């Protein structure tokens, strides 16, 4: 059984990790984690109840009825009629009870999701002095959970009362018939003891069985709720016969691409863009213009609705996801780290890298300086999502990881935006080295960071409205020049 439970946990854990970016962005991580823990526990309880309670108790019931039949068929008939009425009533009421417990399980998961969401944003709670507000916000969900728990438990107790009365009825029926049989001479003392003991035994077992069946329905409800959240079809998966991506040059081509997040809200339509092998391209535009979507589509976080994205002539839909990610290094705007050591976090870029290689990458990314100042140096734990480090430090770890990965395609999403000018200057040199001979896409709000780009694509409402070097775009006096002028301190507004 421990292996059985572990097998479920491992399989479902791996399965959930294959869900798309969209799946995770639409759900609470806490709720998913909660359901993930519900699945093995409920499955184990269901199997236990069936194997250890239902089947043996039903078997005892069959033996008891046979023995009663041998003593006198009247007693067997009473027992059978009572059993079917008792179980019939149980099965009639149980589905509603099941629904109540499923609602309650869902309320608990939502509550846990809210707790995790609050703790993930604890800085916001503190900075806005919203501890009281969060308490009240939490209380809304807590009250809902209490209400649902009360409703389910009240109904369960009501069912138990009915079961108790039903058991009392059986004992009375048996004893009255026994006394009558004794008076009329068709019941011996031996039969009396057999039937009395069997009746009490069976009653106890059926009472236990009823309780276990209620538990069974409860667990089935919990399992159903967990399955409906966790076991969704995977929307982004390897297609049949998918081949590993082979990047020889690093050319990226958007071929007549159409994409929308929601129907009637088309972001890209017939988009065709070619990023040459080894080219360094900057993406510029206001928030919501389509820069991040452009990158997310290359990473296949979403599938295109029309056309294709090709890397060195291979449609990314027809290559394995693992090989796609192996060939792309991404440094996001807000890097999140595992609550593991710094050494492990950097080594995540290439798990077979030696300590020396990790340290060399850290030196290039200028994080070796602050790591060696920590008491535990590379063995220091970074806290959940890396909270013990500053944003700039986390960003440098992400750069070290990308250096170690050494993928032929590099994507930087505002990678240096959270760094101070001195560090940015230092890292810029590392990034220059990292970008050599790699196809690089940089999303930037700080337009000055794009000075060395081979080309800048200016986005507006999902369309590339301008394309050229910084100098060319400025001389055109178009959209980019307008953005340039709007900048105060080097940043684009919102």
């Amino acid at each position, binding site marked *: 059984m421990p292996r059985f439970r572990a097998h479920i946990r491992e399989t479902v854990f791996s399965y959930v990790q294959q869900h798309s970016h969209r799946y995770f962005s639409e759900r609470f991580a806490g709720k998913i984690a909660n359901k993930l823990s519900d699945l093995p526990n409920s499955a184990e309880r269901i199997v236990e109840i069936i194997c250890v309670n239902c089947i*043996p108790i039903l078997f005892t019931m069959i033996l008891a009825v046979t023995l009663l039949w041998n003593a006198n068929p009247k007693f067997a008939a009473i027992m059978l009629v009572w059993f079917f009425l008792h179980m019939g009533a149980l099965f009639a009421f149980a589905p509603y009870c099941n629904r109540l417990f499923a609602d309650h399980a869902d309320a608990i998961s939502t509550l846990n999701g809210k707790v995790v969401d609050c703790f993930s944003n604890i800085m916001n709670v503190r900075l806005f002095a919203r501890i009281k507000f969060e308490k009240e916000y939490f209380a809304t969900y807590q009250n809902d959970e209490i209400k649902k728990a009360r409703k389910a438990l009240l109904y369960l107790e009501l069912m138990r009362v009915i079961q108790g009365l039903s058991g009392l009825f059986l004992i009375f029926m048996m004893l009255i018939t026994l006394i009558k049989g004794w008076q009329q001479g068709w019941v011996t003392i031996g039969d009396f003891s057999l039937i009395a003991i069997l009746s009490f035994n069976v009653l106890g077992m059926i009472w236990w069985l009823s309780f276990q069946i209620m538990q069974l329905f409860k667990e089935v409800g919990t399992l159903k709720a967990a399955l409906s959240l966790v076991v969704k079809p995977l929307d982004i998966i390897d297609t049949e016969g998918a081949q590993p991506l082979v990047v020889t040059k690093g050319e990226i081509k958007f071929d007549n691409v159409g994409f929308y997040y929601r129907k009637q809200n088309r972001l890209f339509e017939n988009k065709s863009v070619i990023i040459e092998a080894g080219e360094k391209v900057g993406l510029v535009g206001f928030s919501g213009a389509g820069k991040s979507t452009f990158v997310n589509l290359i990473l296949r976080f979403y599938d295109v609705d029309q056309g294709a994205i090709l890397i060195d002539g291979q449609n990314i839909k027809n290559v394995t996801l693992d090989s796609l990610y192996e060939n792309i290094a991404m440094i996001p705007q807000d890097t999140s780290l595992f609550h593991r050591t710094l050494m492990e976090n950097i080594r995540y870029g290439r798990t077979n890298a030696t300590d020396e290689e990790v340290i060399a990458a850290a030196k290039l990314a200028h994080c070796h300086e602050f790591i060696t100042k920590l008491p535990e140096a590379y063995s220091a734990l970074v806290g959940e999502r890396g909270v013990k480090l500053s944003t700039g430090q986390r960003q440098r770890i992400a750069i070290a990881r990308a250096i170690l990965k050494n993928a032929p395609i590099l994507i930087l999403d505002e990678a240096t935006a959270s760094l101070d000018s001195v560090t940015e200057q230092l890292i810029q040199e590392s990034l220059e080295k990292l970008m050599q001979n790699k196809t690089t896409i940089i999303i930037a709000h700080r337009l000055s960071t794009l000075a060395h780009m081979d080309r800048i694509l200016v986005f507006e409402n999902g369309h590339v409205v301008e394309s050229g070097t910084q100098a060319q775009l400025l001389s055109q006096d178009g959209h980019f020049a307008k953005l340039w002028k709007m900048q105060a301190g080097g940043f684009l507004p919102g």
Partner: protein
Amino acid sequence: MLPYTVTSFIWYFVKPYRYWFFAVIGLSLIWATNEALFAYYIKWIVDELTALHGNKGAISLLAIKPLVFIFVSWTLMDIAMRVQGFVMRGGDAEVSCAYP
């Protein structure tokens, strides 16, 4: 994709361990049998006693057979429950779910 209905999901994971589960069911049937037979042994003893009509000297001789049966089936039940507990909990806990 993983099975998404309760029965198919459980069967998907039970299947590799099905022989263990069959063993658990088999062991459960031992104590289930004992639960029913215990009443029969008592009836057996009572029937023997009433058949004596006061001949107390023959009691021990007549009662020994059902008592041996009670002893054997009780011992078997206890062993079955311990083995079942080991299989269900990996040997680290008592059987907590079986009918008490």
